[in-house]
């Protein structure tokens, strides 16, 4: 099933290995960058959809509070909210699902070309699209102290996998405020905490178990991920260090998006000399409420004015 992905990946990886002077680590890193670039549109789509979901979190919380004893009504109200804001709760999962086969193909391509076992090498024999690449198989799997076809005996790569993955998660995710006594448990925060701890450890275990060439890919992918998010302006260094931002990162977590709205309200009341709404991020087009839809019968589920409208209004008011 994955052959359609694995076979071209193997050919590309071998080609990169050939043109990069037979350096397998360099080939894996360049290969990772190329795959990241190729899947960038999916990442972007996923991010936009995710942002839309974050934006409606305050509304969602209100609904959950209102219908806490009636799950059926809650579900109805949630669907109505999704419709009004044009949000599809599965929209950010779809690119994720599309990326899975790509990642599996990538893993398998790396393992196959390193020829960790005879069966892998046998399997590789009918996967090459360019017969001329046969003479570079299997790849030279020694790099520094490593035999890339077996796990790292020094455990240095597994440690780097855990550290870079943890760092990536911490940098990308803004800090969530510690729950106060009496607060209801925040499920997203709980999931975030669980993921931040378990996922790096899980990948660390795999790095100990599998070929170290795969660990090279994990590390490269994490570092490239951090750089990619940094370029997109999504890195929250202060959050990672536990420093509360003076100006919250707009529209990232539910608590902070509410703060953003508060700021808009304050901005509307602010004197003209100040530029109040400058820091509020323009939300994506996709989260504009669809005004053409039939208004909800339930008066609670009213589409809020989007941040962009509020901001402009605030600016206009300030100018006057």
């Amino acid at each position: 099933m994955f052959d359609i992905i694995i076979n071209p990946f193997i050919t590309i990886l071998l080609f990169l290995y050939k043109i990069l002077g037979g350096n397998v680590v360099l080939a894996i890193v360049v290969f990772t960058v190329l795959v990241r670039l190729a899947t960038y549109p999916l990442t972007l789509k996923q991010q936009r959809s995710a942002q839309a979901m974050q934006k409606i979190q305050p509304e969602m919380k209100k609904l959950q509070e209102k219908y806490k004893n009636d799950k059926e009504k809650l579900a109805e109200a949630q669907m109505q909210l999704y419709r009004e804001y044009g949000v599809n709760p599965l929209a950010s999962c779809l690119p994720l699902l599309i990326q899975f086969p790509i990642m599996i193909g990538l893993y398998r391509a790396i393992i196959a070309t390193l020829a960790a076992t005879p069966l892998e090498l046998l399997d590789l024999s009918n996967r090459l699209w360019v017969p001329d690449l046969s003479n570079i198989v299997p790849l030279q799997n020694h790099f520094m102290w490593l035999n890339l076809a077996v796990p790292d005996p020094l455990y240095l790569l597994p440690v780097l996998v855990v550290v870079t993955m943890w760092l990536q998660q911490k940098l990308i995710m803004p800090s969530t405020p510690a729950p106060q006594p009496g607060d209801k448990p925040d499920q997203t925060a709980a999931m975030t905490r669980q993921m931040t701890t378990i996922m790096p450890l899980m990948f660390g275990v795999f790095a100990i178990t599998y070929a170290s060439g795969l660990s090279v890919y994990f590390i490269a992918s994490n570092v490239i991920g951090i750089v990619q998010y940094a370029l997109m302006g999504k890195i929250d260094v202060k959050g990672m260090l536990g420093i509360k931002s003076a100006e919250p990162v707009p529209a990232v977590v539910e608590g902070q998006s509410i703060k953003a709205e508060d700021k808009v309200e304050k901005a509307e009341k602010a004197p003209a000399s100040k530029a109040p709404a400058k820091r509020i991020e323009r939300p994506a087009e996709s989260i504009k409420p669809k005004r053409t839809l039939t208004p909800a019968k339930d008066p609670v589920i009213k589409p809020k004015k989007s941040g962009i409208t509020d901001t402009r209004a605030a600016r206009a008011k300030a100018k006057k």
Partner: protein
Amino acid sequence: MLPTGNEGVRLNILHVFHSSRRATIAVLLVAAVLLSACGGLTGTWPGITVSDGQILISYGQRIAAIDPATGERLWDYPNKDDRDATFSAIPVEVDGVVYVGDYKGRVHAIDDAGQAKWVYEPDIEKLIGPIALEAPDRIIAGIAVSEDRVFVGMGSRNVIALDRETGAPDWEFETGHGVWSTPLYLSANTDGNDGEATLYVASLDHNLYALDPETGNERWSIDLGAAAPGDMLYDSDRNLIYVGTFLSELLAVDPATQSIAARYATEGWLWDKPAMADDVLYFGDLKGFVYAVRITDDGFQQKWKLPVAEQPIRGTPALSNGLVIAGSEDKTVYALNQSNGDLSWKANTSGPALTSVIPVEGDNEAGIVVVGTTENDALVVALSSASGEEDWRYSNED
């Protein structure tokens, strides 16, 4: 890497699963499935040989000796409590002692009762606890045996020589890649080998090395153009070494001139050595073709070539009753007429038949052939070499 670091994605997942615990478990399960794909094809096929009236098979965590007449297990090694390594290299029996390597880089010398005579354990320098300076090596190749030494190709890059009586390490030679091919030892008085005793080693680094078996020093080497993962065949009449490569070529290397004397291009990669009878070499390739190639003073001359199997034919075919009998990954053994390649019979083996097919003299007048598969229930399948009818199958279960 999994793009679950994104908060919004988590929100979405959370909405789908309604609770953080369920959502976390779901994501972790997906990650586990994804990562389990990393392992890919972790295994290999069995190592099989016939020697001294018994079939020796190495697979999984043990070596077993099988009665060729009945398919019954005669003995196995190691004891159930001591099974801590994987075997797949071809066992070699010389003077009642079986030599075989494992996936922890150890070499076992086993006597005819299935007891360890000695075990060579590679010395791995440890730093603290399990942290070591190098990974344990794997032994995938068979072992060559001389009068006083055994020679072992290691999965990473080395060839080592051990004392045949004690297993004490003697010397080590480093190639540029793994050695998956059984080294070929030719003593000084081997027919056709007028020179000194020599150890030939084919490596995945594309080279064929000629080493001094006493010291491990390199005498000469030759670039084969691609990796040579399989065993070599020595033709004493012509003093030639036949070896197949991943460049889809069968090569005849002349040790006297240290050059390639003949080449024959095939459709797919070649893995194992050919079988030879009456100056004709018979072999299969990884695209499922079978070849009959005559060796002449002018080089290779094709007798016939046929697409036979849908999947790779990896091992050496057996030559018996005027047939070429080859096993394929497509779970079938094919018997072709040696003279023209016509299909005589084919038999199902239940599992991928990736080992060499080996003829065994038995009670059956025509004899049987045995082949190893990767299925534990049919680890060895014995077929009548004349008809392909199944004689017995050996299960590796306890």
